[in-house]
């Protein structure tokens, strides 16, 4: 496959997707899909998906990746890996879902208040800031961003957890956080402006 | 522009496994670098070190010995005898100052066309990186 242009937007979303997915070990197995539906029927959440996991690959083949990136399908994947272990063609479908999530964010396919992307982005920010994640901080910021009113309904459980010492409020920051940032910026340099960094459209 | 170095590899292939596997690669139209000159023998057991050294002394940059997988030899265990001899051969090459990557012993079954192609491909690349072997010293001519 020819090298990708530094600006991935020069390419079709299908090409960008394939470039990324083939770079995962065993990623090219996606070509072997026989559309048997084992993934869909193994998936605990496919019942709630706009498109079943099998239809994700069918859409890709039909040049209709757009509709998948806009759909709720990718954000319903809970990473249980049933599809991956059972797939008779060896397609690493969970990795495919991760890749689609990244592309959806990178290419601006997600709505601003869509919960799953928001929590993922928050997660990344907090980890980048501290080197670790503090769940309490994550959850509270998430609630404020998505649905401040619903936060109230969480209060009873939060209070119970707090009483039991399960709500540590001060996040831990690792000592090597600055070093880690250096490593991270090295990665950004190597991989180019957008490639695989997951910078969102706005950020870029 | 400097011309790309095309390594010359001599392949001693046993007729039952590696040669048939190499044929299968062709029949299946699997592509690999055309840098290998196959020489068919009945069994890798026939390949004595003189033949390998002769190839290197005559201008080959590498030698591939291709036989059946252990346990699959048509002549019971000729390939195992080759394996033992191969270790000695490697020591010999070492003494001559020849990189041991230039001579490979590989097991390729009659059904492993793809594998044969990949072996030749990786070997060609490896030798391309090593560069040409200019090894025509006097003592060598004596041995071969």
């Amino acid at each position: 496959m020819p090298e990708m242009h530094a600006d991935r937007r020069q390419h079709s979303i299908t090409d960008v997707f394939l470039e990324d997915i083939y770079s995962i070990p065993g990623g090219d197995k996606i070509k072997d899909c026989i559309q048997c539906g084992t993934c869909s029927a193994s998936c605990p959440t496919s019942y709630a998906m706009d498109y079943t996991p099998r239809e994700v690959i069918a859409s890709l083949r039909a040049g209709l990746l757009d509709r998948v990136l806009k759909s709720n399908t990718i954000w319903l994947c809970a990473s249980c890996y049933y599809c991956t272990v059972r797939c008779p063609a060896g397609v690493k479908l969970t990795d495919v879902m991760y890749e689609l999530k990244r592309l959806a964010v990178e290419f601006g396919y997600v709505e601003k208040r869509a919960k799953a992307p928001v929590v993922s982005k928050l997660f990344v920010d907090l980890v980048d800031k501290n080197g670790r994640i503090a769940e309490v901080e994550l959850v509270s910021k998430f609630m404020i961003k998505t649905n401040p009113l619903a936060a109230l309904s969480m209060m009873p459980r939060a209070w119970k957890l707090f009483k039991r010492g399960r709500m540590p409020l001060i996040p831990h920051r690792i000592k090597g956080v600055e070093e880690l940032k250096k490593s991270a910026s090295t990665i950004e340099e190597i991989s180019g402006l957008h490639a695989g960094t997951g910078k969102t459209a706005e950020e870029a | 522009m400097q011309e790309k170095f095309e390594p010359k590899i001599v392949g001693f292939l046993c007729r039952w496994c590696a040669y048939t596997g190499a044929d299968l690669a062709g029949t299946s139209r699997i592509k690999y670098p055309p840098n290998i000159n196959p020489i068919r023998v009945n069994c890798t057991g026939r390949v004595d070190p003189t033949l390998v050294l002769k190839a290197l002394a005559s201008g080959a940059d590498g030698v591939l010995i291709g036989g059946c997988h252990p346990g699959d030899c048509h002549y019971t265990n000729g390939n195992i005898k080759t394996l033992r001899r191969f270790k000695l051969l490697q020591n010999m090459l070492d003494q001559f100052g020849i990189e041991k990557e230039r001579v490979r012993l590989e097991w390729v079954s009659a059904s492993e066309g793809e594998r044969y192609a990949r072996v030749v491909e990786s070997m060609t690349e490896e030798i391309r990186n090593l560069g040409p072997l200019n090894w025509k010293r006097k003592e060598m001519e004596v041995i071969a």
Partner: protein
Amino acid sequence: METTTKFSYYPGCSVEGMNKAYDKSARVVCEALGVDLVELNDWNCCGASAYMSIRELRAHLLSARNLALAEKEKKDLVVVCPACLTTLTKTNHYIAENPRLKKTITTALKAANLQYYGSVKVRHLLEVVVNDVGENEIKSRIKNSLQDLKVAPYYGCQLTRPFGEVDDPEFPTMLDKLLGWIGAKPVSYPLKAKCCGGMLMMTKEDVGLELTKNLLACAMENGAECIATICPLCHMNLEAYQDNVNKHFGTDFHIPILYFTQLIGLAFGFSRKSLGIDDELTPSKALLEKHLEVVR
């Protein structure tokens, strides 16, 4: 005979935060078993699924930093969170299989004066306890057998999937075995390795509740009195969301959820407090008093 096996220990963010009891009980039990857990100095987030969903290379970097730190210690790296297990193992595999990825990560680590050669083995504590410590050692320390307490072993997803290196990805048996050793009666139920919903409980609550409800119902129908967990996230969903499940589906679940380390600790005679059992939202005291000789 007193032997100790040393491991590097990676608690993971979740255990450091809302699931301290897991960490606490793991340390107590390991000490008793002569398994020396040395916490990995300055470890960072493993780059778990939420991170991986946004940034691929940097998720691998996060994992690789931990692996590089662990490599210096020259010991196997033990985790208690299966998600950390999968994330770290995945990076291990992918670096080994993809030279380009390896080069990128190596260069990035170098910027932080780190190096990773790929030699660290990542293991889940359950597997260490079952395979390295073993039946005899565990049985010999039992002071307070669980006396036929009916426990549903819950494996969740990522202990065995996708890699399947430690147990069967469909029907694992490791925890069943362990529960038997400490006197409990492992409940056989078909959903033991199914998904609890994971992070969906935050982002898509109705789906998360559905999956968790199915698990609770199936364990109960098969006679479970409590559920043993090996994952902080599963634990959270099964335990802290039982109320929500009941509200959402009109059910009436009150089933205690205990970490496998807490159950071992109880069998070894440790107090509930020292194992963090007091922190739970669904009380287990009454149940434990029914089965254990001494409940402290």
